[in-house]
């Protein structure tokens, strides 16, 4: 991503704030989510809220967008203390929020989505909307087909529609909640440009992220949250005086209390001896017909050796999930061979592949990885239902199941009130730990990780990565599918780039790999 030059106009730092928070505190049972927070949101600034998961960012957005009310302290709009009573009230006050997960109605067109929320007795005025949106989008340099179905838009486009929706209601403050977490690198860059356009027009943008680099690239003013408290702020003047590396160092200092390099910057030491081993998982000529929303697979071939981490790079939606599903046996390929541990497993069902030691850690933790309403203990055995010793003659052995669960919970440090807690109540990081426990449990020989750190906070991200490193260290083969290039460079021995369902190149992870992979991802030869 290019560092958008923090070019707030000279008077912005003295502009009157639109929203001022003073001494705002919000408590939930057992936690102080926001603790005595002071903050001013001014026009013409991208105000970055930086913090890990659980730092209190979401609560703060909830307060600003009228979803929850503070227990103590005041929120002043234009200098006047105001109770933001509801999301509708927040909109009326000029505070628009774009939430992390898109709130568009997928079966309606873009225009219809934009017209939602108008008074019910009025006929939707599509023509005037058309003009307004065209003006807006032209001046911002984005192109949106108003007649396209919301479901057919990419995530980045959906986000642009939501931003347009907020703007078309004359928002003065635009809150972007973790908006980059679902975007491709290009999408992130586009969003950065868009934010610059918006602040140039005198809007105040609040940009929430836990990614240090995005904060450094897009911000004017940075507020760092940690465990509900605001632990630091960098003013635009100071922001401009620091270069990228100094900024990162400062963020890390504020967020983690110790000065170090970007903790995500780890370099994988090469393992040349891997070359001589026999491949554990080898795939050849794997094809899958394209389907709605994915390009299918086209003649995929690769080998993974014991102890090796093969990274699969590529922008989201280029066939990664299909590849993982076909390898795990959830989906049948149209052609090609999969050999695992010397045996052809192409026609094996999921259960047989798992028993043989081929494991798949899904990226969709709640959607397919777990049954949210089932207890942790059952979710840990979800892929072994009916297997002894947990079931005997088909009858559940509660003691064995609970003991197994307690064992894994301790081993993998899953923070849960008990093994009987429904897994859906745990945080994302703890659900991921439970899934790691399930897939790495006895007998794993090769593990497919699909975006293993997606949506996790830094602490859990680093813990998961070191777990993946350990898995390879212990002689298992690892296929690491990720959209995060830093992650791939930190862990992989080799990186294959997937584009439109085809492997367009494979690069050894040595100095220069970043450029080579980047070129491949950008459609150039390495």
């Amino acid at each position, binding site marked *: 991503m290019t560092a958008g030059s923090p070019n707030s106009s000279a008077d912005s730092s003295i502009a009157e704030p639109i929203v001022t928070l003073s001494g705002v505190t919000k408590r939930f*049972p*057992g*936690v102080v989510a926001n603790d005595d927070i002071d903050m001013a949101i001014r026009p013409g600034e991208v105000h970055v809220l930086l913090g890990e998961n659980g730092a209190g960012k979401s609560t703060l957005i909830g307060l600003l967008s009228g979803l929850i009310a503070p227990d103590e302290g005041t929120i002043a709009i234009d200098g006047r203390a105001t109770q933001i009573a509801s999301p509708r009230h927040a909109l009326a006050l000029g505070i628009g929020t774009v939430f992390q997960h898109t709130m568009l109605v997928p079966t309606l067109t873009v225009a219809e989505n934009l017209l939602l929320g108008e008074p019910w007795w009025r006929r939707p005025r599509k023509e005037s909307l058309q003009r307004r949106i065209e003006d807006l989008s032209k001046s911002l340099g984005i192109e949106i087909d108003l007649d396209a179905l919301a479901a057919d838009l990419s995530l980045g486009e959906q986000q642009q529609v939501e931003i347009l929706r907020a703007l078309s209601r004359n928002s003065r403050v635009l809150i972007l909640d973790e908006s980059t977490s679902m975007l491709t690198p290009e999408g992130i860059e586009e969003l950065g440009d868009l934010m610059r356009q918006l602040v140039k027009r005198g809007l105040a943008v609040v940009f929430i992220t836990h990614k240090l680099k995005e904060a450094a690239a897009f911000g004017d003013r940075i507020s760092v949250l940690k465990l509900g408290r605001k632990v630091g702020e960098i003013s635009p003047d100071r922001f401009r005086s620091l270069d990228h590396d100094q900024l990162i160092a400062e963020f890390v200092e504020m967020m983690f209390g110790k000065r170090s390099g970007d903790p995500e910057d780890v370099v994988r030491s090469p393992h040349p001896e891997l070359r001589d081993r026999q491949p554990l998982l080898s795939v050849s000529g794997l094809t899958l017909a394209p389907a709605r929303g994915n390009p299918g697979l086209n003649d995929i071939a690769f080998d993974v050796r014991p102890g090796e981490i093969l990274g699969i790079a590529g922008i989201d939606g280029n066939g990664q999930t299909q590849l993982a599903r076909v390898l*795990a*046996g*959830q989906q049948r390929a149209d052609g090609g061979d999969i050999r695992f541990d010397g045996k052809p497993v192409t026609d094996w*069902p*999921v*259960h047989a592949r*798992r028993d043989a030691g081929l494991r*798949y850690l*899904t990226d*969709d933790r709640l*959607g*397919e*990885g*777990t*049954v*949210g*309403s*089932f207890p942790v203990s*059952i979710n840990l055995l*979800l*892929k072994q*239902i*009916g297997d002894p010793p947990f*079931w005997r003659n*088909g*009858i*559940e052995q509660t003691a064995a199941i609970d003991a197994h669960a307690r064992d894994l*919970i301790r081993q993998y440090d899953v*923070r*849960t*009130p*008990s*093994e009987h807690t429904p897994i859906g109540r745990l945080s994302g990081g703890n659900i991921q730990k439970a899934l790691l426990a399930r897939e790495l449990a006895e007998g794993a020989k090769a593990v497919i990780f699909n975006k293993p750190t997606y949506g996790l906070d830094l602490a859990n991200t680093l813990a998961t990565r070191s777990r993946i490193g350990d898995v390879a260290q212990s002689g298992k083969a690892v296929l690491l599918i990720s959209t995060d290039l830093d992650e791939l460079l930190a862990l992989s021995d080799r990186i294959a780039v997937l584009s439109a369902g085809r492997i367009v190149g494979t690069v050894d992870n040595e100095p220069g790999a970043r450029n080579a992979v980047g070129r491949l991802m950008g459609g150039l030869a390495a």
Partner: protein
Amino acid sequence: MSTDALQASDNPEPRPRAELLSALGHRILLTVGPILVSLIIAGLILVFVGVDPIKYYAYVLDRGLFSPSGIQQTLTRMAPMLFLAAGLIVAFRAGIWNLGVDGQFLLGAVTAAASAPLLVAVVPAWLAAVIAFVIAACVAMAWSLVPALLKAYHGVNEIITTLMMTFLGISLANVLVKLAFLDPNTTVPQTRTLPVEDRLPRLFDTTISSGLLLGLVAIIAVHILMTRTAFGLKLRTVGANPHAAIHAGLNVPRLTVAVFALSAGLAGLAGAVDIIGVQGNVRADWNPGYGLLVIPMVFLARFNGFAAIGFVLLLSVLSIGGESAARRLGVPNHFTLVLIATVLIVLAIVEYVDSRFLKKTRA
């Protein structure tokens, strides 16, 4: 906070028990409360149509529960309802809305009624009963095959298909009684009658059919199947999250067909137990519509087999008592339905209020 949580997990005994009790009390309050409120609302309706509600309820209770003949009729009628509830619990827990139990019930009943009198001529009565039960279950399963396959392999909404198949099934049962299985010795269109001595034995010196015991066994077996076995867990996984079921390597289409077979089979058994236990034959146009009555009870019981026994008893009391009250007080038989529907609506409202407002204050 997380360390507290961890410590709590080391020592799970003392607190949760009290919590469990209070949760149970809460649940009972949330179930019994709406029923009382509904009785009051339904009572107001009775006042409106000019009937003394106290008298009506007292009469229903007397005829359905407290008089010796009433309680015996009530318990006898529970048998088919328990089988239906069992079939519905299997399906609903697996996330499959088999609303076609009435058609499956009736086809099971008709085939049992047609086969049993013929069978007793060749084999002992108990064996005839067993064979008739099996035939009824198989016919009902076969009837559910079309919705099952459509759902399993093409994702066609089973609510629509099973409801449609019920209309066809009821008509087919009628046609079978009038054409194929007609008893030539009677003038009214009905099947051959199974002699009273060849029906299911009665319990002790009462008129209660032993079908009640079969029904209880069926629903408890289903409850254990769904909560304690690997097969039940697989079905619940499919119901709770089909994507997770595929991810876990379960054969979702096959399990779906199995659920339909179990559910419809139990509905067919419900028909058989009513015929071989009580009715002895099927008259043309006979359709008690138990299925649609039992569905709300299964929801009230939250798919719990033991709770369902209690609610089926309640339904049975209301319907037996309501039939007598209809004759005596002139309140239409359908008033039972009005009462049950009121209970459901009040329950839904209470549930909403509880999750929306009360949980907040307790949290």
